[in-house]
């Protein structure tokens, strides 16, 4: 009986560890995604790049 109790405790701990781990990784991913979205938005703002791309695309 004691072994069974110990098993359930270990299982619960493992499951909570998995959830905590998922949450930590998800937080990293969200942070990186925000950073990336910001960079993409800044990249889109560059008129020079847009101009050059458009002009050269017409020529190729």
């Amino acid at each position: 009986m004691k072994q069974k109790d110990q098993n359930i405790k270990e299982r619960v701990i493992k499951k909570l560890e998995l959830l905590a781990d998922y949450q930590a990784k998800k937080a990293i991913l969200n942070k990186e995604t925000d950073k990336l979205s910001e960079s993409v938005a800044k990249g889109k703002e560059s008129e020079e790049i847009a101009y050059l791309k458009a002009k050269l695309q017409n020529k190729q």
Partner: protein
Amino acid sequence: MTAEPQFKKPDDLLNEPLFGPDKSAVTNSIKQNRFQPALETVKRDGFSPSDLKEIETAADKKTGEITGTQPKPDKPFSVDQSRTALDKTLRHDVKRYGTLFSPAVQASNETLRKVAFTKEIIEDLKRRIIQAKSLAGKTRKSKVVEALLLPFMAIYGILKSHKLKNNLKEIQELYKMANLPNSPFGLPTQLQADKISPQRGSWALLATGTAHTGLYVAGGTAAVAGFGLPLAIGYLVGIIGSIFGYRNAGKTRNELLKLEGMVNLADHHINQIESGCQNLNTAYETSGVNALAELSSGKKNMMN
């Protein structure tokens, strides 16, 4: 002397175990996505098997919410099932991150390829402008010699004018290829200056050179025949033509200098774009690599 009190940061407090073996506090904590304090509390002894079962149900329910896979009634997830479901969800999120990341990098790389193409044209333009400047200078000098009544130099003038004309044509073609007119780089709409345009400027040089030769030949023939006036007229027209040719070659040279300045400016801007794209790529790469590295190290920990 007393030590200053040490205050914990809010993040540390959030991760601290909840007080006592309180089953409701733990299940509430799970519901509120505060897994770390729930975990720390469960690690302490004091929960009965029935408490632990309720906590497990709460954890399974949360895993189901996150992954979209609910456990069957009265049959909790196994640890492996939880791990697989959470891992799959995380992979899906990473993939979404990848789709956001990839078009930006592709666009940036595409711009870099175009920058390289434009840089080649600009290099060629610079080289040809230097050649044309030298040819314009030589043409100008040849007109001075022409004016000093050395008829054979008219041939030299024609040859230089012809070479200059071809060079200017190349410059015009390259300029069109780079398609830089109306650009934010401050280049003019067209190759201004009939002085630079092969159709006008150098044709004029060529035409005056040809006219000179004809007139010198006519003048020389007339002189042999003993006619002084046609000789004088022939030389006079030749000198006037040389003066125009001299001025035209000078203007061509000045326009080439202006064009050179503008091309250098374009070169500067294109280098800035290139370095901007490279920085952007590095930033994407770093953030992507950081995210994936952290995720993969987290995954390893999870597996251990």
